[in-house]
């Protein structure tokens, strides 16, 4: 399946610091249509579009928007731009190359759910993205597309930019709220869900950058137009961040349903003519897929049966020379460092997992280690408060499944670490 450019239509084409350039390429046509058709129409189109959240949880966007629109009291819109999943850079490209699209999409959200307060929580390291968003907000305000009277609708909507301070956990939506409120970055108890009680206790619509950027497309093309791409259950296109051992790493937009093999081919295939060892699909919170999975369609429904996940859209490619267990060790260390420490399964589980993976990676595995990893993984996945702990064992356990012979000192961790693709499965 070919690469398409819908979310990326303006990226690298329009001057990201010019409102005029954005408008000349179709920008703000969607807001005009929303002003004309009204919130009820937007909600029904969004629901019919089947758009699922792109932040990792794949929650139906239309259902979320309706829940906030029907909530009582002051409402808020939050754009989660704390893109911190290792190997993920799609939101960065959208914000840096097409910041007005983020602003327009948030404005549509504000008008639709009747919120006046919008907030973008930008990953601290994304200085350029934050600067371009601020510039875009400023220009939109001066053009009357944001502020006290949005595009002549008589409705107010404001956006402010808040930069994160470097914690992975603050990309979890409720930890994000705590961070904005000046509290410790810890996930909150759910329920209540953000749509009921979110930022400052108000019903809050929180969407990922990529999810929001799909909204103007739904508005302009209608649900049926949006559904021209993708599958019945995974509608539209998806941004995949392909990195690692490929010829042309980068950001690729493809329709859902494109196979993993087709995506890798777009990126020029495994570099230097080497063979594929594994793909870490979904980032650190994702799972390893072996070369036997190249025919797998990249959809929510296609990846689930094999324990995979679209996740954040990170696709990290390892060739035959990579040390799988070194990568697993880095993933385990990442979660041990980023756990907030609030709940026991994640706080202690990420620590114990790191200790065991350290043994595996250095060829000092003990016979009981696979069972320990399975038990720790089950406790983290089942009993952690938030998505961090619930996904912290996925990569480790999927690596174990790919290399069942690895974790024993008898066959040596080192040979397992440099296993050849032929030995897989």
């Amino acid at each position: 399946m070919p690469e398409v450019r819908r979310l990326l239509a303006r990226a690298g084409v329009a001057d990201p610091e010019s409102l005029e350039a954005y408008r000349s390429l179709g920008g703000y046509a969607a807001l005009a249509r929303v002003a004309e058709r009204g919130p009820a129409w937007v909600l029904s189109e969004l629901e019919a579009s089947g758009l699922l959240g792109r932040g990792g949880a794949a929650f139906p966007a239309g259902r979320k928007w309706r829940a906030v629109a029907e909530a009582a009291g002051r409402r808020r819109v939050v754009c989660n731009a704390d893109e911190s999943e290792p190997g993920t850079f799609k939101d960065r490209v959208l914000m840096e190359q097409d910041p007005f699209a983020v602003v327009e999409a948030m404005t549509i959200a504000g008008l639709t759910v009747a919120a006046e307060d919008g907030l973008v929580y930008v990953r601290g390291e994304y200085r350029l993205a934050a600067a371009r968003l601020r510039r875009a907000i400023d220009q939109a305000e001066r053009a009357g597309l944001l502020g006290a009277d949005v595009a002549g609708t008589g409705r107010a909507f404001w956006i402010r930019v808040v930069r994160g301070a470097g914690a992975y956990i603050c990309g979890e939506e409720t930890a994000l709220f705590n961070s904005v409120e000046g509290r410790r970055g810890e996930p909150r108890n759910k329920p209540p869900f953000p749509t009921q009680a979110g930022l400052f206790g108000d019903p809050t619509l929180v969407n990922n950058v990529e999810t929001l950027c799909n909204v103007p497309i739904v508005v302009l093309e209608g649900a049926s137009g949006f559904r021209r791409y993708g599958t019945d259950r995974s509608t539209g296109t998806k941004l995949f961040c392909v990195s690692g051992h490929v010829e042309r790493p980068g950001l690729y937009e493809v329709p859902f349903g494109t196979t993993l093999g087709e995506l890798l081919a777009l990126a020029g295939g495994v570099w230097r003519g080497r063979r594929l060892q594994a793909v870490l699909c979904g980032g650190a919170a994702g799972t390893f897929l072996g070369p036997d999975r190249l025919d797998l369609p990249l959809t929510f429904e296609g990846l689930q049966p094999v324990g995979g996940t679209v996740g954040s859209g990170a696709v990290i490619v390892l060739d035959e020379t990579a040390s799988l267990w070194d990568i697993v060790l880095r993933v385990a260390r990442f979660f041990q460092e980023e756990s907030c420490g609030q709940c026991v399964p994640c706080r202690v589980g990420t620590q114990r997992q790191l200790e065991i993976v350290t043994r595996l990676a250095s060829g000092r595995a003990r016979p009981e280690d696979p069972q320990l990893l399975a038990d720790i993984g089950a406790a983290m996945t089942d009993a952690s408060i938030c998505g961090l702990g619930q996904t912290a064992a996925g990569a480790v356990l999927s690596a174990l499944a790919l290399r069942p012979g690895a974790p024993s000192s008898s066959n040596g961790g080192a040979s397992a670490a440099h296993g050849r693709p032929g030995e897989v499965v």
Partner: protein
Amino acid sequence: MSIVIEVDGRTLGADEGMTILQALRRAGMDAPTLCYHPNLTPVNVCRACVVEVEGSRALVPSCSRRVEPGMRVRTDTERVRRARKVVLEMLASSVDTSTAPELAAHLAAYHGDPARFGSDVARVLEPLRDDNDLYVRDYAKCILCYKCVEACGEDAQHTFALTVAGRGFAARIDTGADAPLLESRCVFCGNCVAVCPTGALMPLIEHRMRQAGEWDESRQHVAETICPYCGVGCALELHVQGNRIVKVTSPADHDITRGNLCVKGRFGFTYVNPDPGGR
């Protein structure tokens, strides 16, 4: 009994607003808890009380999830038992449990073996903080249940001397830049000590007696009285060993105190003892 739920195939009545745990306990069932306290807002961090709720992907903390009509709960599945057991094992492999009877009891009930993670694992290593005349802080025993933070903050005292600092396995209860208690906002009410489930927070007298091998609860009796200091009338439980008051508590289910006291009621008793100068 406005709501009917199903637990392990049994039909239970529950009131609206009740948590699953409350419904369980009223029906004579139970779930192990460590961070739960009836007078504190559930923080659901220990995850020992998790149950399966039909329709929920992950397990659900029974201490905080409210009952809903028709909710189907399972407390006896392999998945629940495994998560609870591993959680208890992980805690016990991390901290000194020598004065944590609840944790030890739960661990035994689930046949947990904390030693299976190995003898060379990271543990919570913190020096004893013995920096004032009233209570010690031994964070090597701390399971981060947040009860002290809650009791010091919005759930009782509103002093906010305690918080959590650090992340992941390095997270610790902190007074703000690890200040000694006398330099912190602490008002020495001891309400944190009263709710600590592991003995990480302990009155100095109890700590000294334990160190000397003198602490013996089998030789203690409790005398109930009313605090003599002011007109509020807080109920006191005087723990007496060898004709000396060794600790003062207040019943958690008492209408006036809900287990809380002030510095005078909790610690101002040594004048009663035969040797009031000594601690």
